[in-house]
């Protein structure tokens, strides 16, 4: 009997030790990057990107032992069978027309979209639970995501990471936005805690709530996806990118001049790189130096790199924080030679503006204008989620391009159960836009979409009845021209030109 017990104990020990061996955290590394870009409008765009790549199989058990990867997030992702996850918490509106495309575009308020693994059984339930768990993780109202505001659009989204099957099945995708969400310090603090160095050391020390939430636009992002470990893609890694996009208005901050510095923007100098980081770089876009207001960087950048994307050449000054050997506080400042010169504004390839028409509380209409800045016609995929309190008349859909009415190629409808009246979402492909966009001076004639709707009566208990009405933003996307210079052929306007630029450096 004793012998048997001993053997059993040995087996247990052996199993345990072997388990321990397999569960030793796999190889992982952490990069931190900051891009500072003066915009032609005089604003400064600051983009932080913290990337954790972990060479591990994307499974539930993998997330039980984490090293650099945040375990709190890992457990949620593993438990809810998530294949890919994107969260953004945004305040303010990104002005595409004057600012161009951001690295990561985000809807106003909270935005969440996730691809689930194909083994997931009840996706709607899992989706709601996932939103609830993330709501706790980030102290955001993501728990208000339910079937009434979730979509699984067929055309607009593609997985950004590697997939097992080439054809993306949108039934595993869920997308939701909460345009009313107000982003504040309470979201930033838990977001920072997911970083390996927290906000103790490295570029994340620059993220001080007081200097982030007084910007024109601020957006926190969290993007998780499976990526290839090597060129042959024989094995998989998990990549987590935490991003912060900020737009500073130098008219307000500048005290009469355009000069800016890290200290001026973030209220604090840099004390050094995160010790856990493999790479810690600061990039400053100096392209405008040649066309717009000329500025001098101090200290002089150790390296200048050139990047060509979509026919545009960009120049970046690169500071390797690890190599700087910082003693005390480090600051980068830009001094302008002239007081205030605005650069030439080149609107991006595709941008949108929309407004409501009509008067009174009975009915109205939404007009969306799609501006094509490209020299030739574009196919546009358009996604819009109409909330239940704006009952929509799809038969009034009218698309005008250059004075001619055009018909959408595919009109997909995903109707969802709403609170009292169901909401409509449509994810259409305006393929025929191609025929009617004239190549010359495309900005003069934006394509115009008109839709009429009613205004529903709110009940006494409806949340919106005492507040303003918030309607989701639209999601136009297009196949970018000159796709060969991009890693992915489908870059929506939301995830603009700069999307891949850090990765490929």
């Amino acid at each position, binding site marked *: 009997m004793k012998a048997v017990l001993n053997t059993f104990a040995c087996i247990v020990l052996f199993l345990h030790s072997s388990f321990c061996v397999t569960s030793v955290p796999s190889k992982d590394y952490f990069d931190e990057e900051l891009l500072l870009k003066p915009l032609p409008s005089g604003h400064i765009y600051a983009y932080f990107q913290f990337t954790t790549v972990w060479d591990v199989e994307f499974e539930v058990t993998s997330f039980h032992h984490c090293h650099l990867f945040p375990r709190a997030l890992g457990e949620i992702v593993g438990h809810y069978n998530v294949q890919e996850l994107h969260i953004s918490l945004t305040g303010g509106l990104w002005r595409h027309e004057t600012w161009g495309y951001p690295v990561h575009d985000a809807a106003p308020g909270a935005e969440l979209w996730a691809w689930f693994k194909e083994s997931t059984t009840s996706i709607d339930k899992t989706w709601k639970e996932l939103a609830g768990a993330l709501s706790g993780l980030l102290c955001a109202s993501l728990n208000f995501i339910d079937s009434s505001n979730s979509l699984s659009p067929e055309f607009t989204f593609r997985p950004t990471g590697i997939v097992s099957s080439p054809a993306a099945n949108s039934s595993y995708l869920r997308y939701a936005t909460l345009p009313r969400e107000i982003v504040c310090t309470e979201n930033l603090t838990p977001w920072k805690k997911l970083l390996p160095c927290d906000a103790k050391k490295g570029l994340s020390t620059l993220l001080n709530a007081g200097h982030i939430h007084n910007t024109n636009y601020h957006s926190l992002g969290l993007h998780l996806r499976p990526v290839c470990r090597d060129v042959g893609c024989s094995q998989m890694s998990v990549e987590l990118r935490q991003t912060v996009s900020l737009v500073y208005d130098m008219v307000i901050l500048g005290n009469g001049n355009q000069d800016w510095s890290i200290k001026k923007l973030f209220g604090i100098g840099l004390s050094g790189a995160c010790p856990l980081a493999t790479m810690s770089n600061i990039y400053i876009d100096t392209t405008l130096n040649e066309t717009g207001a000329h500025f001098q960087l101090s200290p002089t950048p150790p390296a200048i790199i050139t990047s060509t994307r979509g026919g545009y050449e960009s120049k970046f000054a690169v500071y390797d924080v690890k190599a700087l050997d910082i003693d005390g506080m480090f600051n980068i400042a830009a001094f302008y030679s002239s007081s205030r010169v605005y650069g030439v504004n080149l609107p991006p390839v595709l941008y949108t503006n929309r407004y409501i028409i009509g008067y009174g509380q*009975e009915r109205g209409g939404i007009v969306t204008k799609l501006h094509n800045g490209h020299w030739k016609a574009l196919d546009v995929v358009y996604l819009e989620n109409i909330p239940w309190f704006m009952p929509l*008349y799809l038969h009034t859909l009218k698309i005008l391009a250059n004075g001619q009415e055009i018909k959408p190629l595919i*009109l997909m409808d995903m*109707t969802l159960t709403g609170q009292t*009246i169901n909401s*409509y979402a449509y994810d259409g492909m305006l393929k025929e836009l191609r025929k009617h966009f004239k190549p010359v001076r495309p900005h003069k004639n934006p394509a115009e979409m008109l839709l009429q709707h009613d205004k529903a009566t709110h*009940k*006494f208990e409806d949340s919106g009845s005492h507040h303003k009405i918030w309607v989701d933003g639209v999601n136009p996307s297009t196949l970018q021209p000159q796709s060969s210079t991009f890693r992915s052929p489908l870059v929506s306007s939301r995830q603009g030109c700069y999307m891949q630029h850090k990765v490929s450096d």
Partner: protein
Amino acid sequence: MENLIYLEYAVAGIIRYWLLNSDYKQTIGDRVEISTPLNSWRKVTEGAYLYNEGINPYVGDNFHETPLGLTVFDKMISHIPQWIGIIFIVCDLVTAHVLYHTAQIFMSELVEKDKYAKDTEALLLKQSDLVLPPVYVASAYLFNPYIIFSCVGQTTTVFANLCLAFTFLLMIKGHRLACCSVLALATLQSLYPATLLVPASIYLAQAERTSSLEGRQSLRASSFILTAVTFIAALLLLLYISSELAGGWEFLHATYGFILNVPDLRPNVGLFWYFFTEMFENFRLLFIYAFQINAALLYLVPLTLRLHGEPMLLAASLTALMAVFKSYPSLGDVGFYLALLPMWKHLFNYMQQGFVVGCFFLITSVMGPIVWHLWIYSRSANANFYFGVTLAFATAQIFLVTDILFAYIKREFSLYHGLHREVNGKTTKLVLE
């Protein structure tokens, strides 16, 4: 008389045609008093559009017509769009003619054969009293602004009224199968007409009794059962056809579910919207039950017990109560039962509230659009103003219904007890308590 009625049809048709081709058409069709989510042509167009795009219109909550209606309207919109207005006008004129015919038959029934009290000769209807009411019925339908607006606004109430008119006609003619089929069609569209099964079955049973050889005998239960079974069979058949056309049963939720649950609280002339806007969610189910029972069932039993001898009046009062209490009433429903009232022209002398009700109708019809504009466009009023007007409108209608019923009872009392009434030597007056 025949020429007069045809002239009326022509004039009514021209009025409707002129309004349909005028700029007022859109304004009239957009009025909440005329178009409800259940009958608006805008929703029908939307449903047909979705249907043609290959999208199931019943999954979204913006379309509430039956699949049968959808198929017919879709054919109309896609094949004969230029004739749609004409179809509405013709249906309205046919409704008027059917009501005229119904009134004529009803008048012949009114000639009293019973033995009444001695001094009641003055009360009895003479042949000459029965000539004009059918013309009044047709005129009340043809020239009632509520009906004209309902037709010009292209509401599907026009077709519902047509079905109801045919139900009345076939009921009085005693055609069981046809009557039950039309009633089933009306029920399929708006659910509430199901209550008309009771007066219809009484009528059909009476028709069977008069046609049988034995003459006077009590109504047979088998006749009632047969009518009910025919109606249910017809309704089930229509529902089955609908499900085949729609490719599923989701339409039940979008049509009957919508009527019963009242999810859309856009104001209308009814009483539901305001009440359920203000309702705490946990009481909603209770009050849905209360309101729907009030609309459909509450008055059915007492009225049947009292008026089983006069099923036409029973049917008319049930139609009126339906128009007052249903979840999405429109002025087209109100106009329909108002057109029936001249059939009881001989009761008008007994009515006391005529002037009050008339003033109510006039004032609420004027005030409704005014306070709507103040509330929705000028933002200087609020929902309570409009609700006040709809409440007054409903009150006026209830006054009208109770008044006509009480007038009937008073006349009946006088017929059996004589005109001279004395209690303990004093002359008395009949009062409704």
